[in-house]
């Protein structure tokens, strides 16, 4: 159960390989979280992450198999995960692929794969999660969106569109679940130094997974519906999204 100060006891991560997710779970375990399930396509690769969490004091840590693209399996897998974990205080939807914009332009299959995982996969798994949270009468659903969801940009609009889709989906789901006391929180990080962005040129306001984790933990405590990391990006994108198109087009973004 979430306590009066917003600390949680159990966490389910969908996309347990994500650097942001792992940083977030470490921060939660440093607080009150004691039961953690990391679900990922390659659970064997999460041994080190599980070991870290145990050392930080978690009692029950396991890595299990979950495939975001196998949408047919989602209901069954989510049901099984909730059975294993009992009450789940936080579900973090963290899986996603960046794709290659250049390649996507010429390879529709590559573009579809990004949309499939980031949007269809995430939406598909969030629905059974929402049902389970509603049934247990409490909980938070955290979804990693991106600042790329704020405005379509030449440099990353396939990824941006997939995140814009899931961002809108999560906003609506959050309003649907609010009367049930379920928090749905959209997280919009800027560029984060992770394995996903390794080798990329650094954008302004590039942040770290730990900073994003801090923002998520803060948002869970406050019951926020949206968090930005770093927070200044809220202002930056507030301006950017209202720039007139001719001007926006000239910016190299």
């Amino acid at each position, binding site marked *: 159960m979430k306590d009066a100060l917003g600390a949680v006891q159990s966490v389910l991560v969908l996309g347990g390989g994500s650097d942001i997710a792992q940083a977030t779970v470490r921060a939660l375990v440093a607080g009150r979280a004691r039961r953690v399930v990391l679900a990922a396509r390659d659970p064997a690769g999460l041994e080190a992450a599980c070991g870290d969490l145990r050392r930080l004091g978690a009692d029950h840590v396991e890595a299990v198999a979950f495939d975001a693209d196998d949408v047919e399996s989602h209901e069954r897998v989510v049901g099984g995960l909730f059975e*294993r974990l009992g009450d789940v205080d936080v579900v973090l939807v963290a899986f996603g692929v960046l794709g290659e914009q250049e390649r996507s332009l010429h390879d529709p299959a590559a573009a579809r794969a990004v949309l499939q995982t980031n949007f269809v996969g995430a939406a598909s798994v969030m629905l059974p999660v929402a049902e389970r949270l509603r049934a247990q009468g409490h909980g938070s659903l955290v979804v990693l969106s991106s600042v790329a969801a704020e405005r379509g940009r030449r440099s990353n609009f396939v990824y941006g569109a997939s995140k814009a889709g899931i961002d809108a989906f999560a906003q609506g789901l959050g309003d649907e679940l609010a009367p049930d006391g379920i928090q749905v929180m959209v997280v919009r990080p800027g560029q984060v130094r992770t394995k996903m962005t390794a080798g990329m040129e650094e954008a302004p306001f590039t942040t770290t997974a730990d900073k994003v984790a801090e923002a998520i933990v803060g948002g869970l405590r*406050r019951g926020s519906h949206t968090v930005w990391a770093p927070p200044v990006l809220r202002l930056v994108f507030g301006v950017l999204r209202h720039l007139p198109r001719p001007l926006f087009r000239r910016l190299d973004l």
Partner: protein
Amino acid sequence: MAPATPPRSAPLARAPDAADGSAGTPEAAGYLRLLCGWGLTAPTRARVARPGERAEVEDVLRESGPRGVIARGLGRAYGDAAQNAGGTVIDMRGLDAVRDIDLAGGRVTVEAGVSLDRLISLTLPLGWFPDVVPGTRFVTVGGAVASDIHGKNHHHHGAFGDHVDSLELLTPRGERIVCARDQEPDVFDATTGGMGLTGIVLAATLRLSRVRTSWMRVDTERAANLDDVLARLDAGDDRYRYSVAWIDCLARGRRLGRSVLMRGDHATLDDLPPERREAALSPPRPPRLAAPPWVPGGLLRRSTVAAFNEAYFRRAPRMRRDHLEPLHSFFFPLDAVRDWNRMYGPRGFLQYQMVVPFGREDALRAAVERLSGARCASFLAVLKRLGPERGLISFPMPGWTLALDVPAAAPGLEPLLDGLDELVAEAGGRVYLSKDSRVRPELVRAMYPRLDEWNEIRARLDPDGRMRSDLARRLGLTDAHSQAGSVR
């Protein structure tokens, strides 16, 4: 013929109002509602049923789903004791019959949903007052039993459970049993202070004290610092039936722990001026002020609280003897402001109440020093000596109890309170479960050494685990050899 009950198959509607800690339209079948405690933190959703009589309570219990049931009274527990996320919450206020008043012996038998407010307004004009009352009269008898509440007379008269002659309990398996100190004593001890987890209290027979007036004769004195207040409480408490000290948790240095002691007894007829003797037992007036429906966060900030504390301390007489005070303002000062819990703003607040045994004044001092050092705004802090222990997981134990309200949004609160919990546990003390909304589950076992014993009795009464609450889930109270927040 059984009375008609609303159809169980009717779809559940969401109640119109949300997490305000109160209840919606009376309905036995239930509404889906967000509930939270008096601190207005951590709301969860449950089906709230409001039975009007015992048979309907049995129906609700029988038809409860896998997430179980818990009884709820007036929602004055600060945290999550009367919440049951995803399950059923039984609003007991519909069971409000007064079954019997024994005016010769000073005993009353009431259903669990009767509030102390109602009880007092019924018995006080007749010259009887409950043996134990807490700081608010807006609690139900069932809640008072489940929390085994204490009042300003604990050092003399013990807790609520010490003054319950017998209880009628609906066990989780649906049997109605009567328990008392000499009848099913283990059930009685597990139920008084048992946080509602041994079953549903349906009715209780309580002992009342004879009073001659609805006035108190009160001595007030200031204490310059913590040593001073402890010495005064130690030396003088035996002479006072009721005793409590307001303590300034913001004062520092030489004034650390400065306090105002308020101690007294029921006034006799002779204590009253002649013009008051005629209507000496007129009952307390109902609340007249109401807090505004919405309050911006941070109204009760350090600067305003420090100013309040300064004024409160200076306003108090250095020493005043035999001052007459209306009974209700002595016992229930905050009841004069309805919904005062909203004053802490939208993120709510919590009450931290702990006790450390006599002899561990060092831990008490360390706690007050840390609170003062953290500049943790609280204008409601009380210090009191407690008497003997009773029950299995009741809060009171011989020692010093300190209680203070803090806004949940206060910066640095979590490490501060976690540190205090460790200090208290190490000193052999405990925090009060009815106030708690955040203690580390790992520490509860150390604080309540008889928890396993309690849990064995509870498990015997409730083998299927029907009684559930958010508090029990959060702290793992009902897990065998309680593991912190384990799978349940």
